[in-house]
């Protein structure tokens, strides 16, 4: 902070400005002084005003510098916290890169496109097996159909065999009857007829056994056919088309993952840029120290000017006491103040230049909260 030692003013400026007469710094002077004296009075007046301006400027610089320094410190602190946050954010975004790359399986990152490939390969195997199963099932169905037809043909043969057997039996019976008619001459023929009849009975018994066995085979085939039919009629087309749907889903997943990777890569890049920018801002704000040093030099120079003016003013009024108490050049002050666009600053200058008072604390004014003073000479401007 910079502050000039405030010197109490011997007199504050008394303005008497009549609205009907033009403004003059010599309003209270009854007779005009000689030209050189008037000129010296103007010099003294200007020196006095310049001292006040210098003190006001020093005050403004001090307060502005203090304000800027305080704000820069606060800003620097906030930017440093922002830098830490930005760095953490960059790390978090960077960790997303791993998530976007793939899925962790048993401690290893497996890329999404590889998972899609594995899934497609597995589903392809499943579909191939379904095709083989369907083909083998239908082959068995056709084989059982064929077997069933064979059995049916055998059953027809058995029916024919029954017919032959019945005929044989009938022939044996007729032969026996004819042998009885022939009497003793037919005794040998009778024996043959009996043998044929016994043979027919055996054949009939054998045929019955074969029929029974064949019925077992037929029942077995029918049961197997029915079972196979139940297996073969299970429609696996839905399972086959599931592969199609899963492939579409995987393509969408791979595409989404690719988009995610791009976005994450962009985010990582942006986060890095933000971190770098924030770091740069922190560094930039730290240059405030150099600004402060420059302002110190300016204030120091203004101090020297003030002292020089005070010295020359003091020595002049000592030599020429009649020049003391010179009125300020109000027109000059007005022109100076007209250049100020900030009303509160103009108000402070009015108070200081004309009333010789310096506000103690300008910090509130710096944030623009204070209304201009409405007292004293301020009203005139």
């Amino acid at each position: 902070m910079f502050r000039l030692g405030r010197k109490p003013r011997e007199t504050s400026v008394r303005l008497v400005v009549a609205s009907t007469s033009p403004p003059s710094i010599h309003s209270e002077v009854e007779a005009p002084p000689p030209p050189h004296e008037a000129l010296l009075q103007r010099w003294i007046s200007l020196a006095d005003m310049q001292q006040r301006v210098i003190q006001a400027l020093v005050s403004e610089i001090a307060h502005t510098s203090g304000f800027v320094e305080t704000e820069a410190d606060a800003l620097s602190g906030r930017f440093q916290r922002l830098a830490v946050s930005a760095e953490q954010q960059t790390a978090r975004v960077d960790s997303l890169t791993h998530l976007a790359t793939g899925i962790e399986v048993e401690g290893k990152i497996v890329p999404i496109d590889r998972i899609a490939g594995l899934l497609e390969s597995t589903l392809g195997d499943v579909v191939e097996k379904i095709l083989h199963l369907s083909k083998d099932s239908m082959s068995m169905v056709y084989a059982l159909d064929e077997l069933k037809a064979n059995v049916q043909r055998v059953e027809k043969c058995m029916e024919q065999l029954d017919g032959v057997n019945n005929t044989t039996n009938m022939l044996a019976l007729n032969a026996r009857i004819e042998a009885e008619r022939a009497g003793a001459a037919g005794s040998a023929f009778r024996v043959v007829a009996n043998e044929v009849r016994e043979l027919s009975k055996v054949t009939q018994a054998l045929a019955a056994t074969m029929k029974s066995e064949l019925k077992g085979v037929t029942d077995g085939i029918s049961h197997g056919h029915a079972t196979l039919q139940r297996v073969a009629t299970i429609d696996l087309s839905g399972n086959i088309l599931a592969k199609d749907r899963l492939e579409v889903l995987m393509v969408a997943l791979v595409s989404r993952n690719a988009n995610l990777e791009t976005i994450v890569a962009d985010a990582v890049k942006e986060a890095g840029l933000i971190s770098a920018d924030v770091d740069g801002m922190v560094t930039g704000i730290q240059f405030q120290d150099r600004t402060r040093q420059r302002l110190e030099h300016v204030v120091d120079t203004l101090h020297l000017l003030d002292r020089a003016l005070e010295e020359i003013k003091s020595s002049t009024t000592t030599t020429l006491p009649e020049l003391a108490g010179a009125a300020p050049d109000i027109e000059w002050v007005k022109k100076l103040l007209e250049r100020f666009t900030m009303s509160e600053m103009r108000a402070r200058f009015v108070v200081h230049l004309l009333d010789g008072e310096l506000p103690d604390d300008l910090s509130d004014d710096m944030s623009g909260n204070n209304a201009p003073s409405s007292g004293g000479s301020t009203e005139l401007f």
Partner: protein
Amino acid sequence: MRFEFDADESKVSISGEFTFTDHATFKVIAARLLDGQDKAIVIDLAKLEFIDSAGLGMLLIVRDEADKARRSLVLRSPCGQVKRMFDVTKFDTLFTVEA
């Protein structure tokens, strides 16, 4: 399922739905196709609306029988669900499939 043979008995057009219940009918169709004399056997599927896994299995059996007889089997103009099933099962790697 309905079917219609060309005059030379080497090409058949099937329509409707081809499922397990058509296995007996398809056996007759396959036998007639294999009895033909042309080198290429053609099954036109343009009017076939649906095929299930059993139907695919029967086509594979005919293909094996045609191979044994040193004849080629062409599946022509599959569309809709039939074409989708062919695509998913990569039937074009197992058969000659013509658009």
